[in-house]
């Protein structure tokens, strides 16, 4: 794990521009972004696989390639079609052999917000419109329905992948060479942005982890003043009054502490969360739509 500690590449001579053939290969490989999707690092393995043709061209030194592959296994979640924008950006930084920490920070700061933009454009706009147009053709037994659907959706997807890759790679190459004059200061600013965005991810993605304990607490007169209604004490609502998303924040900090100070491996942390999740569900502690294994004197709510 020596490469884990590397903060700069050994060979810091900027590599030659990655040729179009390799860029095209990366565009096609970007389709497998989510092939190894998982809850721990989401798209990371697919991301690295898509980046590999470029990385192998850039890092001829084996130690540098190992360092690059290692940091490209970081947590990543972005829009599967817009990902090539992040790829082009990161590739241009890799090519300039920028500080590893800077690449890491810029990657997560670019990737995270793109997810929202991509979803809004694709899943909420293009697909519903296309489906509205073609679904009725299909229902009428017209084979053109599915064919048109595929051409429009897949065409838009591939145009986006190609366009964004080239645009951001060229953009990145220009921007990156400007930044290298103050490399150390830029690294600090990029880390700042990265940490800021991770903070945002904790509350933005973490909200799913919440308590589902709802304790029945007698009855009270309803607002109409006549009927009686049940009263429940929802523990999560009380927690939210102290600090919303408190549990996601504490869990992240706990993991950070275990990994950084206690040298836990990520796998060990995952095992811990499996136990916390399942044991919690046995006793009906976590929110969700399920029945606890052990009968408990409270209701489980989502």
């Amino acid at each position, binding site marked *: 794990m020596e490469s884990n500690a590397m903060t700069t590449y050994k060979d810091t001579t900027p590599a030659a521009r990655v040729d179009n053939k390799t860029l095209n290969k990366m565009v096609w490989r970007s389709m497998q972004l989510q092939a190894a999707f998982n809850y721990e690092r989401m798209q990371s393995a697919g991301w690295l696989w898509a980046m590999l043709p470029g990385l192998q061209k850039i890092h001829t030194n084996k130690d540098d390639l190992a360092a690059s592959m290692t940091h490209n296994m970081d947590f990543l979640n972005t829009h599967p079609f817009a990902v090539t924008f992040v790829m082009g950006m990161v590739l241009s930084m890799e090519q300039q052999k920028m500080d590893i920490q800077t690449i890491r920070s810029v990657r997560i700061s670019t990737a995270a917000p793109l997810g929202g933009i991509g979803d809004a454009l694709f899943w909420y706009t293009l697909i519903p419109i296309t489906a509205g147009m073609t679904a009725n053709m299909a229902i009428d037994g017209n084979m053109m329905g599915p064919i048109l659907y595929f051409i429009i959706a897949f065409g838009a997807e591939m145009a986006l992948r190609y366009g964004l890759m080239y645009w951001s790679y060229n953009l990145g190459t220009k921007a990156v060479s400007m930044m290298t004059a103050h490399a150390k200061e830029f690294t600090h600013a990029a880390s700042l942005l990265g940490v*800021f965005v991770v*903070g945002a991810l904790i509350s*933005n993605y973490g909200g799913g982890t919440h308590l589902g304990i709802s304790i029945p607490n007698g009855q009270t007169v309803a607002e109409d003043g006549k009927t009686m209604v049940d009263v429940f004490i929802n523990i999560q609502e009380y927690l939210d009054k102290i600090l919303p998303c408190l549990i996601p924040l504490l869990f992240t900090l706990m993991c950070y502490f275990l990994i950084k100070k206690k040298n836990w491996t990520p796998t060990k942390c995952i095992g811990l969360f499996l136990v916390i999740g399942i044991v919690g569900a046995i006793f009906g502690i976590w929110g969700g739509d399920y029945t606890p294994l052990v009968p408990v004197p409270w209701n489980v709510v989502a």
Partner: protein
Amino acid sequence: MDFNIIECVLLAIVTFIFAIDQFSLTEIVYRPIIACPIIGLILGDVNMGLIIGGTYELMMIGNMPVGGAQPPNAVLGSVVAMIFAVKAHMDTNAALGACMIFATFGQYVVTVMFTIMSGLMAKADKAAAEANPKGITAVLNISMAGLGGLFALIAIVAYSAGVGMSDTLTEISKNASWFMGGLGAAGGMMRFVGFAILLKIMLSNDLWGYLLAGFAFALILGNIPATSSAALILVAFIGIAIALNDFLTTSKIKENAGSGMGGMSDGI
């Protein structure tokens, strides 16, 4: 229901591909409007495929796989709806209604797979540390084979057991709900490990405040209905302003410190 081995094998193969396609490949072919006619071709009724596919596709608008959320699984839903409609001669709406328990079950399968595949990340890390691209390819292939295989298996079971499966599945999902609830909760927590790994490298002691600030901004923007869907973009905008300011300030300090030194040496 008549059992036809060729149909069964072909169905397993396309389900295998659709299962992978729902997250990778084209991410378009698995959509009911395209998948159902293909399944219809295998089962011998393309027209039924078009009708079910079109209806299902319209049902799915507003039920998209966004933001890491897992809606009822469209792949198993399509496969089973087609089996019910063509093989058990159910009408379109009845078949679509009856397939929903399978779609929910498919969602469970995906949750389980995404949890298990977290374990593969250790293998990917090892391959990365050894600068071994083949290792990464292997991780991707294992994941895809696992997901596709499991889906294909369920398609075969659905094909051979037919409508009778629905009751068994309902029973299973009722009895195992605590386990699935637990896996779902654990799955939601695993991203914290990913965040912690990122922080391990980026978080120096002077940046703690920014972590909390990002957390706070996302909470505020995420809880205002008007901004909630764009919360991360807005947070990134704020972050860019702070980071630019940090970059310019520290660069200026360095330049001034440099000129100060220069001035002194000039004096001497």
